[in-house]
């Protein structure tokens, strides 16, 4: 029971980071049908920014704001220099454009900083543990879950209540119609990128507190998981992105924890098992858990 509870908290911790990233990917997909493979690079941007600030006396008290701001700026910048120019191209072209940005980002960090890892200090309390009713939890897991929950509530409020949020949802539903209703395309898209950047920035803070180091290709693994989570949830669906992220996180930690019990010697294959399950899921439900029907006239 204790093990199960700890595993679930672990899983929710990892899963909520996936959820934040997946939400950004889903949001961008909603407004411009782009599966943004450069989204994970925002974590890298946040990491290098932290590294530079810590070189000049940074502190974890105000670092999260810097990380979030850098991720937002970088996100908006990718739209300005690249995605804006291919906005009306096929989803395939959009995807490859983001891929190119990802490659370019890796190369630039490698060339201008270093291919090697650059570490900086972590907050002192990260690996502290505390006990409730005999079950010990990691502080960081709880912080991750709480911060994610708060961010999701904030996101929900913004998208339900503010004009910006409603414009973005309208644009995600039917871009042309939204435009006819007076929603400004450039502004909505820039805003969506800024918000996706904000979400990635929050995720980056959570990731960097745990493993405070910058590395050129650190964003890729997170990105792939987040894309998978977003597609599991149903691309374009906000609820789906969150559910997809949590499901993926739980699936990973539960398999890792319980697979050896089920089949001896299979612990080495936990990732393989997870991905076989994911592949099977896509065969059964290619559109994800929450299918989003796009405004496409036949």
């Amino acid at each position, binding site marked *: 029971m204790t093990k199960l509870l700890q595993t679930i908290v672990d899983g929710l911790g990892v899963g909520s980071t996936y959820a934040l990233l997946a939400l950004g990917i889903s949001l961008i997909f909603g407004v411009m049908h782009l*599966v943004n493979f450069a989204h994970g690079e925002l974590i890298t941007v946040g990491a290098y920014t932290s590294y530079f600030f810590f070189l000049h006396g940074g502190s974890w008290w105000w670092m999260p704001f810097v990380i979030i701001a850098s991720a937002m700026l970088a996100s908006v910048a990718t739209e300005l220099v*690249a995605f804006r*120019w*291919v906005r009306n*191209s*096929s989803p*395939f*072209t959009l*995807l*490859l*454009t983001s*891929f*190119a*940005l*990802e*490659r*370019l*980002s*890796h*190369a*630039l960090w*490698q*060339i201008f900083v270093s*291919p090697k890892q650059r570490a900086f200090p972590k907050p002192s309390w990260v690996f502290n543990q505390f006990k409730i009713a005999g079950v010990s939890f990691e502080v960081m897991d709880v912080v991750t879950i709480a911060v994610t929950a708060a961010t999701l509530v904030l996101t929900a409020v913004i998208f339900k209540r503010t004009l910006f949020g409603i414009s973005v949802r309208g644009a995600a539903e039917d871009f042309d119609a939204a435009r006819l209703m007076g929603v400004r395309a450039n502004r909505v898209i820039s805003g969506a990128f800024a918000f996706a950047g904000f979400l990635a920035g929050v995720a980056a803070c959570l990731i960097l507190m745990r493993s405070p180091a910058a590395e050129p290709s650190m964003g*890729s693994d997170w990105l*792939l998981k987040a*894309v*998978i989570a977003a*597609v599991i949830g149903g*691309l374009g669906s906000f609820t789906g992105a969150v559910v997809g992220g949590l499901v993926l996180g739980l699936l990973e930690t539960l398999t890792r924890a319980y697979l050896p019990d089920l089949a001896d010697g299979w612990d*080495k*294959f936990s*990732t*393989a098992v997870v*991905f*076989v399950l*994911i*592949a*099977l899921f*896509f*065969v059964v439900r*290619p*559109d994800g858990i929450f299918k989003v029907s796009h405004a496409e*006239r*036949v």
Partner: protein
Amino acid sequence: MNIGLAKVTRSTLASTALIAIVATLAMAYTSGGGASRDSLIAEMLTNFILVLGMQVFIGNTGVLSFGHMAFAQIASYATAVVAIPIAAKAKSLPDIPFGLADVEVGAFSATLIAIAVTMVLGALFGVAVCRASGLAPTMITLAALFVVDQVVKNWKELTRGAGGLSGIPRIEGNGWLWVGAFVALVVAHLFQETRIGRFAIATREDELAAPALGIRLFSSRYAAWAVSMGLTALGASLRAQSLGSVNPKQFTLDAGILVLVMLVVGGMHTVSGAVLGTVLITVGNEIFRQLGDPQRLGIERFPDLFLGGTMLLVMLLRPSGILGDRDLAGWLRRRMYRRGPAVEIEPQVGERALVASEIEVLFGGFVALDGAGLTVRPGEVIGLIGPNGAGKTTLFNVITGIVPEQAGRVALGDRDLTDAKPVDVARAGLARTFQNLRLFKNLSVRENVALTALVAARHRGHRARPDPDTLLDDAGLTEWADRPAGTLDYGNQRRLELARAAALAPEFLLLDEPTSGMSDQESLAMVQSVRSVAARIGAGVLVIDHDLGFITRISDHIVVLNEGRVLAEGTPAEVRANPLVAEAYLGSSA
């Protein structure tokens, strides 16, 4: 498979020309000497085959796959475990399963075994990849990459884990690699010439229009996948035998992306594009590697910058790649094209009526169709009109299987089509056009019509089939036959869609707003076009239009829909005289 002699000749010609160009360049380069130059050529040739492997699937179907490297890995390890000499295997893989310890085969057999193993595993996996739609196939292939990677790293008895395997007998020189590259070129060219290959391309061009014209998504994609697996295995096996070793680092996502960049930079739609991309990226990579050398600029990983930069530039400036849809084989195909003798077909009016009855469709809470129905008798022209939102297009979509109905029945004679999928509806004899034009835009005008003629040849053999060139003549499009369909003006695109549907030799043509966006004069001409095409193939017509003038001129009988129900029907004169129609259609003030 219908592989005619002309197709084989054409594919071989194009392949020979391409390989001759590459060989000339390679010879000029290697004549400067040095074993490193030969090994760069070896690398380029194996990349060549891997890129062509990707081209066959990704280029023809438009479905992005990250998983090709997973299957390249399977092929490489399959090669290694059967080719490494028994003595060496006893040392490096003492616990190898499946009785492989006593197996040692030559280079040729090892390659064939690798291809067979990969194609079998690929065939299983391909079912999942090709059944799914949207982004799911891409995700499934990505999952394959992770699964194979972890299995290879951890199934140490078979693969020796992350360290990889060495001691694969090396093939001497680059001769066999050239042969492999040539074979890959011929296969990739030939696939585009086969019927199933053309169908795959049609699904890439329009995932919705292809099934509506009788092309099954799954089978055409699956064929592309199978051939693609074979080529990927060939490339990977040859590479393993050229390098003499394999390890998991050769098959990461990054390695796959390198191959993908080669494909998209040249232009993924064509074999010529794949070849150009491979040469450019291999050469560029080498130049940047040398520039980044510690003795020159001293920049580590300089080639990565080149790769990312090139890919971004190509996407921003020429998203379809440097060559786009231009291609040696396509040029040959056009040059070698000869019109067959014009055969006048005897118009064969069908015997079955198309009946839709009591159709109900709900979109959420909105009632789109509320018991509407209609009957089109053989050879008859029925006009379907009604105000916006009356449910005209929805009724079309129900009849053609695109939208499922909650209640009601659709039948063609005694053939029940109520739950039939679009592809089966089309094959049964209903061909449709789309309100918002769904041509195969990157294919030539002739190709658009020829594609459905191919479907007709296979599934509509019992009917007299019109000659595609005659249809183009009738539509006044012969002049533009070799142009990409997407470059035609609006009116001509509409006429092409009509010709494309007619080429299916259907019993009924379903036309969704064939005159939208046309001038009055063009609309008048369209009345003539539709009538003459329908008469030529002996088809009945169901046509939706907003243009009352057009509808009354063209129709024998008119059905008026309003709020999902049939409001009135009759001859054009009767409908015109009906006060209910005037009220619904023009508003009460009219």
